[in-house]
């Protein structure tokens, strides 16, 4: 009996020991991917976007791994909002992915938190080429002299229109059209087509930014909001009237149509969004969709700038060289350009821009739209996006929705917005 007991205890200890070891292994497995014996290096790359984007990226990565057999790329992707929640949690634990998709609104935020790698050093070492970018895009990821992101494509706000609806209503948007003309067009669509002219622009921070820029202001200054409560009260008061009169779509309906857009769900004739999203509308809806210019205040100035998705690297990556080589490949390789198309905007480098000639209607429209932006010289320098810009964007969208649903009087929504923005920008 006694010996029996000892044996039991021993095996018991073994079990306990091995389970502890297993725990330890799992914990180790959570760490950043790193090198193995044969010199193979694994880097992690994450992004936000649709399944379609993931398919294209995975094809590109297969090419990369063929050319750089010693580098393996592990991937992960989520929709936009979920991506940033996950990223934030990983980064705070010192476990940010080695390379990830980034955008202007997050550069200062994560620079302040010491998350982003200054890629300048790698560029100087020759692992990352900064020449061959279009329209000065290589400067887009610079913050305070640091190179925090490398653009993969350029995009700009546009008005996506349901062409059948616009044609039947006899409306043709022209470059330089004014907000009055735009709203007259929406009213005409509403009367002749029995659907709202627009999905409602009042909650889109990046569009309101353009509207403000047309008047010499901007959504953000370096440290706060660049507009007054009176400005926003005016913008939302008029918007609320238009929701009530049906010129803008009923928010109750558009919310329920999601994840479909109001335009493809047949609830509105148009809506403002980034031009590269136009690809999505054709896949989603039955009509034909096109891009129309941003309305202006003075008949000329649209307030637009080229925006861009970028690739950034983690400051804590153990493989800065491999990460730089990967970014270089992803932005310069012509074959990658052909695979990615206009999914993340018009390719940032000449090599990729020339490699992909769109053959589909939407692609041609996007190319034409951005060409027209460059040629008509409406583009202006981008204004700052301080840390906290992302929280401000979410609050803007939410309070605009509450206002449009009539849950909050405009004055109340404006006041609440300024309170929340102040908290977000000060922390």
């Amino acid at each position: 009996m006694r010996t029996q007991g000892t044996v039991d205890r021993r095996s018991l200890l073994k079990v306990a020991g091995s389970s502890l070891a297993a725990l330890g292994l799992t914990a180790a497995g959570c760490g950043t991917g790193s090198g193995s014996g044969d010199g193979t290096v694994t880097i992690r790359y994450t992004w936000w976007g649709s399944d379609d984007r993931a398919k294209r990226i995975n094809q590109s990565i297969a090419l990369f791994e063929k050319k750089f057999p010693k580098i393996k790329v592990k991937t992960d992707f989520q929709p936009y909002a979920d991506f940033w929640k996950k990223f934030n949690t990983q980064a705070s634990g010192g476990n940010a992915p080695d390379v990830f998709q980034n955008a202007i609104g997050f550069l200062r935020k994560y620079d302040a938190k010491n998350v982003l790698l200054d890629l300048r050093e790698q560029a100087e070492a020759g692992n990352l080429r900064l020449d061959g970018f279009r329209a000065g895009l290589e400067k887009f990821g610079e913050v305070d002299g640091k190179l925090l992101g490398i653009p993969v494509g350029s995009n700009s706000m546009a008005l996506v229109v349901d062409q059948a609806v616009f044609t039947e209503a006899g409306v043709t948007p022209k470059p330089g059209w004014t907000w009055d003309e735009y709203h007259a067009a929406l009213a005409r669509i509403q009367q002749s087509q029995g659907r709202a002219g627009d999905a409602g622009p009042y909650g889109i921070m990046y569009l309101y930014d353009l509207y403000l820029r047309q008047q010499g202001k901007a959504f953000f200054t370096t440290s706060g909001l660049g507009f007054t409560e009176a400005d926003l009260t005016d913008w939302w008061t008029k918007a609320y009237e238009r929701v009530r009169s049906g010129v803008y779509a009923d928010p109750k309906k558009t919310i329920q149509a999601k994840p479909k857009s109001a335009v493809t769900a047949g609830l509105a004739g148009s809506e403002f969004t980034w031009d590269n999203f136009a690809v999505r509308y054709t896949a989603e809806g039955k009509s034909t969709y096109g891009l129309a210019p941003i309305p202006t205040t003075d008949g000329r100035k649209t307030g637009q700038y080229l925006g861009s998705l970028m690739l950034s690297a983690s400051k804590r990556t153990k493989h800065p060289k491999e990460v730089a080589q990967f970014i270089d490949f992803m932005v310069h390789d012509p074959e990658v350009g052909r695979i990615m198309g206009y999914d993340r905007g018009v390719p940032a480098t000449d090599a990729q821009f020339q490699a992909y000639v769109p053959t589909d209607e939407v692609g041609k429209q996007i190319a034409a739209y951005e060409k027209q932006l460059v040629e008509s010289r409406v583009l202006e320098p981008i204004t700052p996006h301080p840390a906290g810009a992302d929280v401000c964007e979410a609050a803007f969208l939410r309070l605009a929705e509450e206002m449009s649903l009539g849950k909050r009087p405009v004055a109340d929504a404006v006041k609440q917005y300024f309170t929340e923005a102040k908290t977000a920008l000060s922390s």
Partner: protein
Amino acid sequence: MDTAVTPAPTPAPVTRPAGEAAPAGSPPGGGHPRGRTPTGRARRENLAGYLFMSPWIAGFLLLTAGPMVASLYFAFTDYNLFDAPRWIGLDNFTEMFGDPRWRTSVEVTGWYVVIGTPLKLAAALGVALLLNQSRRGQGFYRAAFYAPSLIGASVSIAIVWRAIFSDGAAVDRGQQLLGMDAGGWIGDPDRIIYALVALTVWQFGAPMVIFLAGLKQVPRELYEAAQVDGASPWRRFWHITLPMISPVLFFNVLLETIHSFQIFGSAYIIGSQGNACGPADGTLVYTCYLYIQGFENSRMGLASAMAWMLLLAVGLVTAVLFWSQRRWVHYEEGAR
């Protein structure tokens, strides 16, 4: 009819003190073993016992107790996950109470608990009463009614729910048949909460099973005596069934109330399209706002303070329920 057929005074199946049905008042089971000092062998057995438990003890300490203590500390700090927490005393709590959105979340949750829990329990008790009669295929019905509470918390059900209550879907069409042109509930900040309530009521199976167990314990002769005296079914329910199952009822009220306070998944999935827990904060339940503050706004200190406030509130409600039971919960002699 059906009850009358049973041969008269067969004693009720098992008459042990309300078993699993009365966890609240039952005495601590077992009692201590003999009061002698443990021998070497007993000590070894103890050690083995603790070793077997060690994964769970470690799990509890590392994954539950540790984080709880940490969050208690964070509740008094400004903590954004990246920088070291900075002690700010009660600032998180003053900010919380002054925040209109926090008050909205309290209202939404309160409303959900107050409407959802009684409706769910009423449904559970009603169906349990129906299923308490011996009928053919009873097992099937029991399983069928129980099934939703197994799958109801899943993401896919929440997505289906969203679809059912949207424009032009089943609920909207039903409304139109009744001549109401109100549209889907999902886009309406005032009505979307009832979609959540409907989802929790639909999961009445779990409390129903507990009620059924309680109903089986009610001695049949009580009903027979009442019937002889000419008591109506309603009076029999009110004066026999309800008092006899009151410990079970108490257990269910307690469990479901606490459960309701913790609603998160369904609210987040059904309400979030563009804005988390919308539209217009219509599904902004407490845990949802906690999540937004913590993970969207990176305010872990504030989120921790909110979590402790929720714990306090649930604790308070539980205490009130326990205090109230002496007025309406009847334990059989010997069971207390």
